[in-house]
Every structure is written in C-alpha cells, then in structure tokens.
C-alpha cells in the first residue's frame, strides 16, 4: 500500500497549465526524487501534496484516504508532512531552538520543557547543538537549512517534502545538508525530494520521476533512469545539468 498517491492531478495558474494529469505514488520508507527543469511544476506538485496549493481536479490519497479541502482537514493533513523550502523560511525573530519548538508548543501543545528537550535532540541530529541560541541571520545557509529540517522533524511528520533544499546554498555548505538527508534516508524516512543534485539522486533515491512542462515524462529506478534515459527530453536535461 503506497503511503501517498495522486490520481490525474491538474493545476492551473490562471491560463498556465502547471500540472497535467499527474499520477504517481510513494511507498512507505521510500526516497523519491523529482527531477526537471525550472518551471516544470515540481514545486507546485509538492505544495499540492501538503495543500499549500489546491488542485483543480484529480485526487491525492494519503494512506489511501482522499484529501479533503475542508479547513480543519487541511490543518490536520499538513501535520502528516514536513516541508523544507529552497529559501529555508526560518522564523527570523526566533533562535534556532525556538524555531524548532514553536510547532510542537503551539500546534501539538507540548510543554516548553518537553519541546526543548526534543528540539535539542533534533539539533544534535543535524549537528547544530552549539547554535541552539543563534538567530537565523547569524547562521550560514547550510546551517539554516539544517535548522529547517529539525523544525520539520519536530512535528514527527510521516513524509518529508524537500523543495530544492540545496539550490540556494553555497557549494561548501551543500554537503552538510545532503549528509543529513542521507542519514534520514538510511533511517527509512519517507522522502520526496525536488533537486538538481544528480549525485544525491543516484546515490540515495530509490526511484526518480522526471517532469517537464507540467507532465511526468519518465519514471523509474534511479540508476536505470540516470544511466539509460529513454526520452529525448530527459537525455537533454541530464546533459545540460552534467555539463553546467
């Protein structure tokens, strides 16, 4: 049974058809990478999964139950997902520790002591114990992104959504973030990762989906898809990324 599945999902932004009949599924404990050029609809697809965007037609099933768009159902469903953004989106007026504890304290109504205890465990996991009391502005991009991962994990989501987590990072800090993601994959966390890091995709992902202009063009086991692309568009995309 897939943990997450979409059926003929369509989404428009005004006249732009950004998702065209998207159907795919993710298994429990799987790491799925979504590849594709900018504007192919990858981010929009992720945002539809945790209902930051509303689909125009089609259905998303979480644990085989269709997602409802009733307000309270949306809030409840979002807790199944953790999301990591390209631009981190940390809360600037809060320390790293407070960024991690805010969700558990306001949404899950965990006590401060308990939330802080767990947050310290998570900050240790992303190797930022010494930055617990630092504000985001004082952290490097890679450090901010790792705080964002800890913040997402604090809500104990069932699926992690990564929206180009390393695209805004300096090359020297990308490694630390990928290292954390690699560990999560090894711990059998269910992850959907939109990325341009082919190395990460090859090494970590079980499966890859390649999207272009709102459509799924190709889908398959990562090794196979990266070494023997079937479509001309994927071949061209891989060439372009590798020779950048």
């Amino acid at each position: 049974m897939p943990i997450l599945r979409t059926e003929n999902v369509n989404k428009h932004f005004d006249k732009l058809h950004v998702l065209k009949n998207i159907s795919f599924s993710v298994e429990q404990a799987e790491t799925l990478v979504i590849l594709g050029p900018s504007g192919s609809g990858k981010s929009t697809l992720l945002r539809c999964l945790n209902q930051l965007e509303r689909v125009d037609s089609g259905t998303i099933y979480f644990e085989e139950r269709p997602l409802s768009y009733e307000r309270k159902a949306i809030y409840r469903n979002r807790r199944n997902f953790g999301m990591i953004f390209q631009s981190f989106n940390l809360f600037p007026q809060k320390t790293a520790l407070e960024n991690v504890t805010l969700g558990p304290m306001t949404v899950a109504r965990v006590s401060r002591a308990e939330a802080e205890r767990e947050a310290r465990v998570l900050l240790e996991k992303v190797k930022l114990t010494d930055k617990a009391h630092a504000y985001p502005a004082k952290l490097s991009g890679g450090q901010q992104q790792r705080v964002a991962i800890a913040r997402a994990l604090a809500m104990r989501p069932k699926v992690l959504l990564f929206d180009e987590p390393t695209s805004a990072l300096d090359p020297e800090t990308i490694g630390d973030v990928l290292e954390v993601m690699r560990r999560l994959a090894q711990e059998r966390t269910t992850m959907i990762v939109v990325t341009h890091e082919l190395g990460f995709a090859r090494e970590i992902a079980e499966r890859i989906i390649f999207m272009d202009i709102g459509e799924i063009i190709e889908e398959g086991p990562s090794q196979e898809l990266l070494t023997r692309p079937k479509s001309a568009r994927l071949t061209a995309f891989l060439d372009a990324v590798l020779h950048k």
Partner: protein
Amino acid sequence: MESQPVVVQYAYFFLKATGITLVLSALSLLTGSAIGFLFSLLRISENRALSTLTLVYAEVFRGSPLLVQLFLVYFGLPIVFHLDVSAFTTVAVSMILYTAGYMTEIFRAAIQAVDRGQWDASYSIGMTYTQALCKVVIPQAMRIAVPPTLGQFISILKDSSLASIIGFMELTKAGMAVRARTSNTLFAFAIVTCLYFMICYSLSIASRRVELRLKKT
C-alpha cells in the same frame, strides 16, 4: 510681573498648551492604532464584507481633510444626535477616527510585507491561520510598522493645530491668544513654531534611530 520679559510671562501658558497638544496627539495615535490594528486584520480577512467595509473606512478618512472631518463632528453631532459635546471630545474623536484610517493602511501594508514564505513555513508545521498570524506574521509586521507609525505621530501632531479653528486651546490656539494679548504676532508664532519643531524633530531623530536598530537585527 509687568517688568518680566514676555517670554517668561507666557512660558507656563505655552508649556501647558504644548502638553495638551502632546496628550491629544498621543491619545489619537494610541487609540487610532488600536482601531487601525483591528481594522487591518479585517481588511486582510477572507470575509468580503468586512474587508470592503474597512477599505472604504480607510479611504474615506484618508481621502478628506481633517479640518472638514473636524467640522463634520463639531456641527454634525449636535444636529444628528442632539449631543452637546465639548471641544476636547470633538477634537479627540475626529483625530482618532482620522488616525485610525491611516493606521489601518500602515498595519495592512506591514502585514502584507512579511514574506509569503513565513506563512508557508507556519502552515507546513500545522499552524492554523490565526496561529500563523499571531505567532509568526504579526511580530514581524510590528517591526515593519514602527517607522511609518512614528511618521504618523509627527503628522498628527502637526495636524492637531487645526483644532484651534474650533476654539480648542492647544498650542496653536495658545499662540493666537498670546498674539491677541501682546499684539506681537511674530513673537507668538515664532515660539509656537519652535515648540512644534522641537517635538517633531526629536521624534524624527528617534524614528531614525529605531529604523537603524531594526535594520541591524
């Protein structure tokens, strides 16, 4: 008394009037801000009726002169509600309503200036609209709103001089009274100008300092 220079003779009078101007302006800013803050929340809410109503409010009160609004309250309240209100009430009510219009727009702009990503992040950890607004967005919006709010304070402080026209004894009216008593127009209004300038300039310096401090963090 007669032998003292006029400046000394009227010092207490001027200071008292300055105090009244300050109190009146602060009262307008505080109460107007409270109303404006509430209205800004309605303005950005999904409720069409409330959003439109607050938009119309802000546009009307920002789109007509304070002096005209002052006349409307001064002559209107007695006619419509048969209320005999004091000059102070008239002036205070007018200035509060007027300031509320500006503050609605200042707070609305500040809330909408907070990065969309902050909403996304709040929602992604399961927060409701109200939680995201109160815990994440408003604290950031408040910082954004500080400089324009101080600007509004300076502006309303100067506009409060209009209250003199309906006979309310604030700083400008005090200048008029001293002019009548001493027949020294230049002296009276030079003092009044200096007092307004001293207050507004200090506020302006404070505003610049606050802005610098906000930029740093």
